[in-house]
Protein backbone atom coordinates (compact mmCIF):
# COMPACT_ATOMS: atom_id res chain seq x y z
CA UNK A 1 0.00 0.00 0.00
CA UNK A 2 1.34 3.43 -0.95
CA UNK A 3 2.22 5.79 1.91
CA UNK A 4 -0.29 8.58 2.54
CA UNK A 5 1.84 11.42 1.10
CA UNK A 6 2.71 9.42 -2.00
CA UNK A 7 -0.84 8.31 -2.77
CA UNK A 8 -1.66 10.04 -6.04
CA UNK A 9 -5.23 9.04 -6.82
CA UNK A 10 -4.82 10.04 -10.45
CA UNK A 11 -1.86 7.75 -10.92
CA UNK A 12 -2.23 4.88 -8.44
CA UNK A 13 0.70 2.49 -8.45
CA UNK A 14 -1.09 -0.51 -6.94
CA UNK A 15 -4.59 -1.88 -6.52
CA UNK A 16 -3.70 -2.31 -2.85
CA UNK A 17 -4.19 1.47 -2.56
CA UNK A 18 -7.92 0.78 -2.18
CA UNK A 19 -7.20 -0.60 1.27
CA UNK A 20 -6.64 2.89 2.65
CA UNK A 21 -10.35 3.52 1.87
CA UNK A 22 -11.87 0.13 2.65
CA UNK A 23 -9.85 -0.88 5.66
CA UNK A 24 -11.34 -0.39 9.10
CA UNK A 25 -9.25 -0.29 12.23
CA UNK A 26 -11.63 -2.10 14.55
CA UNK A 27 -13.37 -4.72 12.41
CA UNK A 28 -11.65 -7.60 10.57
CA UNK A 29 -13.50 -7.29 7.26
CA UNK A 30 -10.91 -8.91 4.98
CA UNK A 31 -10.52 -12.25 3.30
CA UNK A 32 -13.35 -13.55 5.43
CA UNK A 33 -16.74 -15.16 5.33
CA UNK A 34 -19.05 -13.51 7.83
CA UNK A 35 -22.51 -14.51 9.00
CA UNK A 36 -23.50 -10.97 9.89
CA UNK A 37 -22.09 -7.52 9.18
CA UNK A 38 -23.99 -5.40 11.70
CA UNK A 39 -25.52 -6.10 15.14
CA UNK A 40 -28.95 -5.10 13.73
CA UNK A 41 -28.80 -8.16 11.50
CA UNK A 42 -28.40 -10.47 14.48
CA UNK A 43 -31.12 -8.61 16.34
CA UNK A 44 -33.65 -9.01 13.51
CA UNK A 45 -32.46 -12.35 12.11
CA UNK A 46 -35.65 -14.11 13.20
CA UNK A 47 -37.74 -11.82 10.98
CA UNK A 48 -35.77 -12.67 7.85
CA UNK A 49 -37.99 -14.88 5.69
CA UNK A 50 -35.26 -16.08 3.34
CA UNK A 51 -32.50 -18.64 3.66
CA UNK A 52 -29.52 -17.89 5.88
CA UNK A 53 -26.68 -16.31 3.89
CA UNK A 54 -23.12 -15.17 4.52
CA UNK A 55 -20.88 -12.39 3.26
CA UNK A 56 -17.74 -13.41 1.40
CA UNK A 57 -15.21 -10.62 1.47
CA UNK A 58 -11.99 -10.60 -0.48
CA UNK A 59 -8.65 -9.22 0.69
CA UNK A 60 -9.67 -5.68 -0.37
CA UNK A 61 -12.86 -5.90 1.76
CA UNK A 62 -15.06 -5.97 -1.33
CA UNK A 63 -17.98 -8.41 -1.55
CA UNK A 64 -16.29 -10.75 -4.01
CA UNK A 65 -14.89 -14.14 -3.24
CA UNK A 66 -11.83 -13.70 -5.43
CA UNK A 67 -8.59 -12.16 -4.23
CA UNK A 68 -6.97 -12.06 -7.63
CA UNK A 69 -8.86 -9.38 -9.49
CA UNK A 70 -9.42 -9.75 -13.25
CA UNK A 71 -7.68 -7.35 -15.66
CA UNK A 72 -10.92 -6.53 -17.37
CA UNK A 73 -14.63 -6.43 -16.46
CA UNK A 74 -17.82 -5.32 -18.17
CA UNK A 75 -19.50 -3.74 -15.16
CA UNK A 76 -18.22 -2.18 -11.94
CA UNK A 77 -20.66 -1.18 -9.20
CA UNK A 78 -19.70 1.59 -6.76
CA UNK A 79 -21.60 2.87 -3.75
CA UNK A 80 -22.20 2.40 -0.04
CA UNK A 81 -24.08 -0.23 1.98
CA UNK A 82 -26.93 -0.35 -0.59
CA UNK A 83 -24.47 -1.48 -3.27
CA UNK A 84 -22.48 -3.69 -0.91
CA UNK A 85 -25.81 -5.25 0.01
CA UNK A 86 -25.95 -5.07 3.80
CA UNK A 87 -28.68 -7.44 4.95
CA UNK A 88 -29.13 -9.20 1.62
CA UNK A 89 -27.65 -12.24 -0.11
CA UNK A 90 -25.49 -11.44 -3.11
CA UNK A 91 -27.93 -12.76 -5.69
CA UNK A 92 -30.63 -10.27 -4.62
CA UNK A 93 -28.66 -7.04 -4.88
CA UNK A 94 -28.72 -4.69 -7.87
CA UNK A 95 -25.15 -5.19 -9.23
CA UNK A 96 -25.76 -8.94 -9.47
CA UNK A 97 -29.24 -8.55 -10.99
CA UNK A 98 -27.97 -6.08 -13.58
CA UNK A 99 -24.94 -8.16 -14.58
CA UNK A 100 -27.04 -11.32 -14.86
CA UNK A 101 -29.74 -9.67 -16.97
CA UNK A 102 -27.23 -8.04 -19.32
CA UNK A 103 -24.92 -11.05 -19.33
CA UNK A 104 -21.95 -9.03 -18.11
CA UNK A 105 -18.93 -9.86 -15.99
CA UNK A 106 -18.95 -7.65 -12.91
CA UNK A 107 -17.37 -6.69 -9.61
CA UNK A 108 -19.00 -5.06 -6.62
CA UNK A 109 -16.90 -2.21 -5.20
CA UNK A 110 -19.57 -0.99 -2.78
CA UNK A 111 -18.34 -0.37 0.78
CA UNK A 112 -20.74 0.20 3.67
CA UNK A 113 -20.92 3.71 5.14
CA UNK A 114 -18.70 5.40 2.59
CA UNK A 115 -19.17 8.86 1.09
CA UNK A 116 -19.38 10.15 -2.50
CA UNK A 117 -15.73 11.20 -2.19
CA UNK A 118 -14.68 7.66 -1.26
CA UNK A 119 -16.76 6.05 -4.04
CA UNK A 120 -15.00 8.29 -6.57
CA UNK A 121 -11.55 7.75 -5.01
CA UNK A 122 -12.09 4.00 -5.27
CA UNK A 123 -13.04 4.37 -8.92
CA UNK A 124 -9.89 6.42 -9.60
CA UNK A 125 -7.70 3.66 -8.16
CA UNK A 126 -9.60 0.65 -9.52
CA UNK A 127 -9.98 1.99 -13.07
CA UNK A 128 -6.20 2.49 -13.25
CA UNK A 129 -5.62 -1.25 -12.73
CA UNK A 130 -8.75 -2.91 -14.13
CA UNK A 131 -10.18 -2.13 -17.56
CA UNK A 132 -13.84 -1.29 -16.97
CA UNK A 133 -16.45 -0.91 -19.67
CA UNK A 134 -19.31 0.48 -17.56
CA UNK A 135 -19.27 1.90 -14.03
CA UNK A 136 -22.54 2.42 -12.17
CA UNK A 137 -22.61 4.54 -9.00
CA UNK A 138 -25.43 4.53 -6.47
CA UNK A 139 -24.34 7.42 -4.28
CA UNK A 140 -25.15 8.03 -0.62
CA UNK A 141 -26.13 11.45 0.72
CA UNK A 142 -23.92 14.43 -0.10
CA UNK A 143 -23.62 15.08 3.64
CA UNK A 144 -21.58 11.97 4.25
CA UNK A 145 -17.94 13.01 4.46
CA UNK A 146 -14.54 11.40 4.10
CA UNK A 147 -12.05 12.53 6.76
CA UNK A 148 -8.42 11.42 6.82
CA UNK A 149 -6.96 10.61 10.24
CA UNK A 150 -3.87 8.86 11.56
CA UNK A 151 -4.24 5.70 13.59
CA UNK A 152 -4.31 6.87 17.23
CA UNK A 153 -1.01 5.37 18.21
CA UNK A 154 2.23 7.30 18.42
CA UNK A 155 4.14 4.50 16.72
CA UNK A 156 1.88 4.31 13.69
CA UNK A 157 1.97 6.53 10.62
CA UNK A 158 -0.93 4.81 8.93
CA UNK A 159 -3.66 7.19 7.80
CA UNK A 160 -7.25 5.97 7.47
CA UNK A 161 -9.97 7.60 5.36
CA UNK A 162 -12.87 7.56 7.79
CA UNK A 163 -16.55 8.07 7.05
CA UNK A 164 -18.64 10.63 8.85
CA UNK A 165 -22.44 10.52 8.69
CA UNK A 166 -24.74 13.29 9.84
CA UNK A 167 -27.00 11.22 12.04
CA UNK A 168 -24.70 8.46 13.20
CA UNK A 169 -21.90 8.29 15.77
CA UNK A 170 -19.69 5.39 14.78
CA UNK A 171 -17.52 3.32 17.10
CA UNK A 172 -14.65 3.65 14.68
CA UNK A 173 -14.77 7.46 14.66
CA UNK A 174 -14.87 7.40 18.45
CA UNK A 175 -11.81 5.16 18.45
CA UNK A 176 -10.07 7.69 16.18
CA UNK A 177 -11.26 10.57 18.40
CA UNK A 178 -13.16 12.17 15.55
CA UNK A 179 -16.06 14.32 16.69
CA UNK A 180 -18.86 14.07 14.12
CA UNK A 181 -21.01 16.71 15.82
CA UNK A 182 -18.29 19.35 15.64
CA UNK A 183 -17.58 18.53 12.00
CA UNK A 184 -21.23 19.10 11.05
CA UNK A 185 -21.42 22.28 13.10
CA UNK A 186 -18.27 23.60 11.48
CA UNK A 187 -18.79 22.86 7.79
CA UNK A 188 -21.47 24.63 5.77
CA UNK A 189 -23.65 22.61 3.39
CA UNK A 190 -22.16 24.52 0.43
CA UNK A 191 -18.72 23.13 1.35
CA UNK A 192 -20.14 19.59 1.29
CA UNK A 193 -21.72 20.28 -2.10
CA UNK A 194 -18.42 21.70 -3.36
CA UNK A 195 -16.53 18.56 -2.30
CA UNK A 196 -19.13 16.32 -3.98
CA UNK A 197 -19.31 18.25 -7.25
CA UNK A 198 -15.52 18.57 -7.59
CA UNK A 199 -15.24 14.80 -7.11
CA UNK A 200 -17.97 14.08 -9.68
CA UNK A 201 -16.42 16.39 -12.27
CA UNK A 202 -13.11 14.64 -11.66
CA UNK A 203 -14.87 11.29 -12.07
CA UNK A 204 -16.28 12.48 -15.39
CA UNK A 205 -12.90 13.70 -16.60
CA UNK A 206 -11.05 10.49 -15.72
CA UNK A 207 -13.84 8.22 -16.98
CA UNK A 208 -13.71 9.91 -20.37
CA UNK A 209 -9.93 9.64 -20.45
CA UNK A 210 -10.02 5.96 -19.49
CA UNK A 211 -12.93 5.22 -21.79
CA UNK A 212 -15.31 4.05 -19.07
CA UNK A 213 -19.04 4.69 -19.51
CA UNK A 214 -20.30 6.14 -16.24
CA UNK A 215 -23.81 6.19 -14.80
CA UNK A 216 -24.73 7.86 -11.50
CA UNK A 217 -27.70 8.09 -9.18
CA UNK A 218 -28.46 8.37 -5.47
CA UNK A 219 -30.86 6.97 -2.91
CA UNK A 220 -31.00 10.39 -1.23
CA UNK A 221 -33.44 12.70 -2.97
CA UNK A 222 -31.66 15.97 -2.16
CA UNK A 223 -28.39 14.51 -3.42
CA UNK A 224 -30.15 13.24 -6.53
CA UNK A 225 -31.52 16.71 -7.31
CA UNK A 226 -28.02 18.12 -6.87
CA UNK A 227 -26.63 15.54 -9.32
CA UNK A 228 -29.21 16.69 -11.85
CA UNK A 229 -28.00 20.28 -11.48
CA UNK A 230 -24.44 19.40 -12.51
CA UNK A 231 -23.24 20.31 -15.97
CA UNK A 232 -22.24 16.79 -17.00
CA UNK A 233 -21.23 16.07 -20.57
CA UNK A 234 -20.21 12.44 -20.44
CA UNK A 235 -21.71 10.96 -17.26
CA UNK A 236 -25.33 9.86 -17.46
CA UNK A 237 -27.71 10.42 -14.54
CA UNK A 238 -29.93 7.39 -13.96
CA UNK A 239 -33.41 7.46 -12.35
CA UNK A 240 -33.29 7.91 -8.56
CA UNK A 241 -33.47 4.98 -6.16
CA UNK A 242 -36.89 5.42 -4.55
CA UNK A 243 -39.47 3.48 -2.65
CA UNK A 244 -42.76 3.78 -4.50
CA UNK A 245 -44.64 4.43 -1.25
CA UNK A 246 -44.23 4.43 2.53
CA UNK A 247 -45.97 1.06 2.67
CA UNK A 248 -43.51 -0.37 0.17
CA UNK A 249 -40.58 1.04 2.17
CA UNK A 250 -41.95 -0.35 5.45
CA UNK A 251 -42.76 -3.74 3.99
CA UNK A 252 -39.60 -4.47 2.03
CA UNK A 253 -36.63 -4.63 4.40
CA UNK A 254 -33.25 -6.33 4.41
CA UNK A 255 -32.24 -8.71 7.20
CA UNK A 256 -31.08 -5.83 9.40
CA UNK A 257 -34.60 -4.34 9.20
CA UNK A 258 -33.02 -1.02 8.20
CA UNK A 259 -31.76 -1.25 4.65
CA UNK A 260 -34.14 -1.66 1.71
CA UNK A 261 -35.10 -5.19 0.83
CA UNK A 262 -34.91 -7.28 -2.35
CA UNK A 263 -37.95 -5.68 -4.02
CA UNK A 264 -36.24 -2.28 -3.91
CA UNK A 265 -33.16 -3.73 -5.61
CA UNK A 266 -35.30 -5.39 -8.25
CA UNK A 267 -37.28 -2.20 -8.81
CA UNK A 268 -34.18 -0.07 -9.38
CA UNK A 269 -32.50 -2.69 -11.53
CA UNK A 270 -35.62 -2.79 -13.73
CA UNK A 271 -35.61 1.00 -14.01
CA UNK A 272 -31.97 1.26 -15.07
CA UNK A 273 -31.30 -1.90 -17.10
CA UNK A 274 -32.36 -0.43 -20.45
CA UNK A 275 -30.22 2.68 -19.89
CA UNK A 276 -27.09 0.78 -18.90
CA UNK A 277 -27.24 -1.96 -21.55
Amino acid at each position, binding site marked *: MTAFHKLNLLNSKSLDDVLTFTKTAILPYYSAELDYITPYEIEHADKWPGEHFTYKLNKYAFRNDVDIMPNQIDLAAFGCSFTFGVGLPNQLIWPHLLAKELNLSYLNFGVGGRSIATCVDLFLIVSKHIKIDKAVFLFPSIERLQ*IAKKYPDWDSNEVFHLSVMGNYESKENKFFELDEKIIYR*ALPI*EEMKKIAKNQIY*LLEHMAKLRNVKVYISSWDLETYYFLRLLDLEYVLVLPPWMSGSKEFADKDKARDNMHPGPLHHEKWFNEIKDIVK
Partner: protein
Amino acid sequence: MTTPLAKLNLLNSKSIEDVRLFGHLQYPLPDDYEIDYFTKDDGAHIDKWSHEPFTYKINKYGFRLGTMPNDIDIAAFGCSQTFGVGLPEEFLWHQLLAKELNMSSANFGLAGRSIATCIDVFLILSKHIKMKHAIFLLPNMQRLQIAKKHPDTDLVYYLYTIVEYYQLKSLQEFNLDAKLIYRALPEEEIQKICKNQIYLLDYVAQNRGINVYISSWEKYTYEFLCDLDLQSITILPPWQSQSIEFSKSDKARDMSHPGPKHHKKWANEIKDFIK
Protein backbone atom coordinates in the same frame (compact mmCIF):
# COMPACT_ATOMS: atom_id res chain seq x y z
CA MET B 1 -22.42 36.34 -15.23
CA THR B 2 -20.96 33.97 -12.63
CA THR B 3 -21.36 30.20 -12.80
CA PRO B 4 -23.51 28.69 -10.00
CA LEU B 5 -21.76 26.29 -7.59
CA ALA B 6 -23.13 23.09 -9.13
CA LYS B 7 -22.16 24.10 -12.67
CA LEU B 8 -18.60 25.18 -11.88
CA ASN B 9 -16.45 22.42 -13.34
CA LEU B 10 -12.90 23.49 -12.53
CA LEU B 11 -11.47 21.02 -15.04
CA ASN B 12 -13.51 22.47 -17.86
CA SER B 13 -14.21 26.11 -17.02
CA LYS B 14 -16.47 27.75 -19.60
CA SER B 15 -15.58 31.36 -18.80
CA ILE B 16 -12.75 33.32 -17.27
CA GLU B 17 -15.46 35.03 -15.20
CA ASP B 18 -15.49 31.86 -13.04
CA VAL B 19 -12.39 33.15 -11.29
CA ARG B 20 -14.20 36.19 -9.87
CA LEU B 21 -15.74 34.19 -7.02
CA PHE B 22 -12.26 33.25 -5.83
CA GLY B 23 -10.86 36.77 -6.18
CA HIS B 24 -13.55 38.86 -4.52
CA LEU B 25 -15.56 38.60 -1.36
CA GLN B 26 -17.57 41.77 -1.89
CA TYR B 27 -21.10 41.85 -3.18
CA PRO B 28 -21.95 42.97 -5.78
CA LEU B 29 -18.72 41.87 -7.49
CA PRO B 30 -16.68 45.06 -8.12
CA ASP B 31 -15.20 46.52 -11.34
CA ASP B 32 -11.54 47.57 -11.65
CA TYR B 33 -10.42 49.90 -8.84
CA GLU B 34 -7.35 51.60 -7.33
CA ILE B 35 -6.59 51.90 -3.61
CA ASP B 36 -3.81 53.61 -1.65
CA TYR B 37 -3.48 51.00 1.07
CA PHE B 38 -4.41 47.33 1.10
CA THR B 39 -4.66 46.76 4.83
CA LYS B 40 -4.90 48.88 7.96
CA ASP B 41 -1.25 48.12 8.76
CA ASP B 42 -0.23 49.22 5.28
CA GLY B 43 -1.47 52.75 6.06
CA ALA B 44 -0.45 52.74 9.72
CA HIS B 45 3.31 52.45 9.14
CA ILE B 46 3.60 54.87 6.22
CA ASP B 47 6.18 57.01 8.08
CA LYS B 48 8.63 54.09 8.13
CA TRP B 49 8.38 53.44 4.37
CA SER B 50 11.58 54.70 2.73
CA HIS B 51 10.59 54.23 -0.93
CA GLU B 52 8.25 56.15 -3.25
CA PRO B 53 4.51 56.05 -2.45
CA PHE B 54 2.53 53.54 -4.51
CA THR B 55 -1.04 52.37 -5.02
CA TYR B 56 -2.74 49.06 -5.80
CA LYS B 57 -4.58 48.73 -9.11
CA ILE B 58 -6.90 45.75 -8.85
CA ASN B 59 -8.89 44.43 -11.77
CA LYS B 60 -12.41 43.09 -11.67
CA TYR B 61 -11.08 39.56 -11.15
CA GLY B 62 -9.29 40.58 -7.96
CA PHE B 63 -5.79 40.48 -9.43
CA ARG B 64 -3.15 43.18 -9.27
CA LEU B 65 -3.23 43.46 -13.02
CA GLY B 66 -4.72 45.58 -15.78
CA THR B 67 -6.30 43.78 -18.71
CA MET B 68 -6.06 39.98 -18.54
CA PRO B 69 -3.46 38.68 -21.01
CA ASN B 70 -4.21 35.99 -23.64
CA ASP B 71 -0.71 34.61 -23.68
CA ILE B 72 1.95 34.86 -20.99
CA ASP B 73 5.45 33.51 -20.30
CA ILE B 74 5.25 33.50 -16.49
CA ALA B 75 2.02 33.21 -14.50
CA ALA B 76 2.59 33.78 -10.77
CA PHE B 77 0.23 32.18 -8.25
CA GLY B 78 0.18 32.53 -4.50
CA CYS B 79 -1.11 34.58 -1.61
CA SER B 80 -0.26 38.04 -0.23
CA GLN B 81 3.46 37.61 -0.91
CA THR B 82 2.78 37.08 -4.60
CA PHE B 83 0.03 39.71 -4.71
CA GLY B 84 2.56 42.01 -3.03
CA VAL B 85 0.86 43.43 0.05
CA GLY B 86 2.96 46.41 1.19
CA LEU B 87 5.13 46.59 -1.93
CA PRO B 88 5.02 48.31 -5.32
CA GLU B 89 4.69 45.96 -8.32
CA GLU B 90 8.23 46.49 -9.59
CA PHE B 91 9.66 45.05 -6.34
CA LEU B 92 7.80 41.75 -6.53
CA TRP B 93 9.53 38.42 -7.20
CA HIS B 94 7.71 37.62 -10.43
CA GLN B 95 8.35 41.06 -11.93
CA LEU B 96 12.05 40.81 -11.06
CA LEU B 97 12.20 37.31 -12.51
CA ALA B 98 10.42 38.26 -15.72
CA LYS B 99 12.73 41.25 -16.17
CA GLU B 100 15.84 39.13 -15.60
CA LEU B 101 14.66 36.44 -18.03
CA ASN B 102 13.23 38.94 -20.52
CA MET B 103 9.79 37.34 -20.32
CA SER B 104 6.23 38.59 -19.90
CA SER B 105 4.51 37.93 -16.56
CA ALA B 106 1.13 38.19 -14.86
CA ASN B 107 0.36 38.34 -11.15
CA PHE B 108 -2.45 35.98 -10.15
CA GLY B 109 -1.67 36.14 -6.42
CA LEU B 110 -4.62 36.65 -4.06
CA ALA B 111 -4.00 37.78 -0.50
CA GLY B 112 -4.97 35.38 2.28
CA ARG B 113 -5.88 32.51 0.00
CA SER B 114 -5.13 28.82 0.51
CA ILE B 115 -3.25 26.26 -1.56
CA ALA B 116 -6.62 24.93 -2.77
CA THR B 117 -7.61 28.37 -4.07
CA CYS B 118 -4.23 28.98 -5.76
CA ILE B 119 -4.73 25.73 -7.68
CA ASP B 120 -8.41 26.32 -8.46
CA VAL B 121 -7.47 29.71 -9.88
CA PHE B 122 -4.79 28.01 -12.01
CA LEU B 123 -7.30 25.41 -13.26
CA ILE B 124 -9.67 28.14 -14.44
CA LEU B 125 -7.09 30.57 -15.85
CA SER B 126 -4.98 27.98 -17.66
CA LYS B 127 -8.09 26.98 -19.60
CA HIS B 128 -8.45 30.52 -20.96
CA ILE B 129 -4.92 31.97 -20.95
CA LYS B 130 -1.97 30.35 -22.69
CA MET B 131 0.90 30.15 -20.19
CA LYS B 132 4.41 28.77 -20.59
CA HIS B 133 5.51 28.69 -16.94
CA ALA B 134 3.31 28.72 -13.84
CA ILE B 135 5.14 29.45 -10.59
CA PHE B 136 3.44 28.91 -7.24
CA LEU B 137 4.67 30.44 -4.01
CA LEU B 138 2.27 28.61 -1.73
CA PRO B 139 1.07 29.64 1.72
CA ASN B 140 0.96 27.20 4.64
CA MET B 141 -1.33 24.25 4.15
CA GLN B 142 -3.41 25.04 7.26
CA ARG B 143 -5.11 27.79 5.32
CA LEU B 144 -8.40 26.42 4.06
CA GLN B 145 -10.91 27.21 1.35
CA ILE B 146 -14.53 26.93 2.50
CA ALA B 147 -17.51 27.41 0.19
CA LYS B 148 -20.41 29.34 1.68
CA LYS B 149 -23.47 31.12 0.38
CA HIS B 150 -23.62 34.86 0.94
CA PRO B 151 -26.28 35.47 3.62
CA ASP B 152 -28.07 38.04 1.43
CA THR B 153 -27.74 36.46 -2.01
CA ASP B 154 -27.68 33.04 -3.63
CA LEU B 155 -24.05 33.39 -4.71
CA VAL B 156 -21.62 30.89 -3.22
CA TYR B 157 -18.21 32.36 -2.41
CA TYR B 158 -14.93 30.62 -1.78
CA LEU B 159 -13.86 31.97 1.60
CA TYR B 160 -10.56 31.43 3.33
CA THR B 161 -9.61 30.65 6.88
CA ILE B 162 -6.22 31.36 8.43
CA VAL B 163 -5.07 29.80 11.70
CA GLU B 164 -5.28 32.35 14.51
CA TYR B 165 -7.03 34.96 12.32
CA TYR B 166 -10.47 33.90 13.45
CA GLN B 167 -12.01 37.37 13.38
CA LEU B 168 -11.58 38.10 9.65
CA LYS B 169 -14.34 40.47 8.55
CA SER B 170 -15.30 38.23 5.63
CA LEU B 171 -15.81 35.21 7.92
CA GLN B 172 -18.00 37.22 10.27
CA GLU B 173 -20.06 38.52 7.36
CA PHE B 174 -20.68 34.96 6.19
CA ASN B 175 -21.20 33.58 9.75
CA LEU B 176 -18.33 31.14 9.40
CA ASP B 177 -16.65 29.93 12.58
CA ALA B 178 -13.01 29.32 11.63
CA LYS B 179 -12.00 28.28 15.13
CA LEU B 180 -14.59 25.51 15.04
CA ILE B 181 -13.38 24.37 11.60
CA TYR B 182 -9.83 23.94 12.94
CA ARG B 183 -11.19 22.00 15.91
CA ALA B 184 -13.21 19.77 13.61
CA LEU B 185 -10.63 18.86 10.98
CA PRO B 186 -7.61 16.70 11.84
CA GLU B 187 -4.16 17.60 10.55
CA GLU B 188 -4.21 14.58 8.19
CA GLU B 189 -7.41 15.84 6.53
CA ILE B 190 -5.74 19.17 5.87
CA GLN B 191 -2.73 17.33 4.42
CA LYS B 192 -5.05 15.22 2.26
CA ILE B 193 -6.77 18.28 0.79
CA CYS B 194 -3.37 19.80 0.03
CA LYS B 195 -1.79 16.72 -1.55
CA ASN B 196 -4.84 15.85 -3.67
CA GLN B 197 -4.87 19.40 -5.04
CA ILE B 198 -1.16 19.30 -5.85
CA TYR B 199 -1.43 15.94 -7.60
CA LEU B 200 -4.32 17.39 -9.61
CA LEU B 201 -2.15 20.39 -10.49
CA ASP B 202 0.63 17.99 -11.56
CA TYR B 203 -1.77 16.09 -13.81
CA VAL B 204 -3.43 19.14 -15.39
CA ALA B 205 -0.13 20.96 -15.94
CA GLN B 206 1.22 17.93 -17.80
CA ASN B 207 -2.01 17.66 -19.77
CA ARG B 208 -1.99 21.32 -20.79
CA GLY B 209 1.75 21.45 -21.50
CA ILE B 210 2.58 24.03 -18.81
CA ASN B 211 5.85 23.99 -16.86
CA VAL B 212 4.86 24.17 -13.19
CA TYR B 213 7.16 25.12 -10.31
CA ILE B 214 6.15 25.16 -6.65
CA SER B 215 7.56 26.34 -3.36
CA SER B 216 6.32 27.73 -0.06
CA TRP B 217 7.29 30.42 2.41
CA GLU B 218 6.37 28.06 5.24
CA LYS B 219 8.93 25.43 6.24
CA TYR B 220 6.53 22.64 7.27
CA THR B 221 4.51 23.00 4.06
CA TYR B 222 7.72 23.10 2.00
CA GLU B 223 8.91 19.84 3.56
CA PHE B 224 5.52 18.29 2.83
CA LEU B 225 5.79 19.34 -0.83
CA CYS B 226 9.25 17.75 -1.05
CA ASP B 227 7.79 14.47 0.18
CA LEU B 228 5.21 14.17 -2.63
CA ASP B 229 5.65 11.82 -5.58
CA LEU B 230 5.44 14.45 -8.33
CA GLN B 231 5.80 13.63 -12.02
CA SER B 232 6.16 16.90 -13.87
CA ILE B 233 6.30 19.63 -11.23
CA THR B 234 9.64 21.14 -10.24
CA ILE B 235 10.15 22.06 -6.59
CA LEU B 236 11.96 25.36 -6.25
CA PRO B 237 14.13 26.38 -3.28
CA PRO B 238 12.09 27.52 -0.27
CA TRP B 239 11.34 31.18 0.37
CA GLN B 240 13.29 31.96 3.54
CA SER B 241 15.08 34.70 5.40
CA GLN B 242 18.70 33.78 5.97
CA SER B 243 18.70 35.34 9.46
CA ILE B 244 16.44 37.00 12.03
CA GLU B 245 18.28 40.28 11.43
CA PHE B 246 17.55 40.07 7.69
CA SER B 247 13.94 39.27 8.41
CA LYS B 248 13.56 42.17 10.83
CA SER B 249 15.39 44.74 8.73
CA ASP B 250 13.61 44.03 5.43
CA LYS B 251 9.90 44.75 5.74
CA ALA B 252 7.14 45.79 3.37
CA ARG B 253 5.20 49.00 4.02
CA ASP B 254 2.78 47.18 6.34
CA MET B 255 5.72 46.11 8.56
CA SER B 256 4.48 42.53 8.56
CA HIS B 257 5.16 41.11 5.09
CA PRO B 258 8.73 40.54 3.82
CA GLY B 259 10.35 43.48 2.06
CA PRO B 260 11.97 44.06 -1.35
CA LYS B 261 15.24 42.29 -0.49
CA HIS B 262 13.39 39.04 0.23
CA HIS B 263 11.71 39.21 -3.18
CA LYS B 264 15.02 39.94 -4.89
CA LYS B 265 16.72 37.09 -3.03
CA TRP B 266 14.09 34.53 -4.04
CA ALA B 267 13.98 35.74 -7.66
CA ASN B 268 17.75 35.23 -7.81
CA GLU B 269 17.56 31.77 -6.27
CA ILE B 270 14.91 30.48 -8.68
CA LYS B 271 15.86 32.16 -11.96
CA ASP B 272 18.09 29.32 -13.18
CA PHE B 273 15.28 26.79 -12.72
CA ILE B 274 12.86 28.66 -14.99
CA LYS B 275 14.91 29.05 -18.14
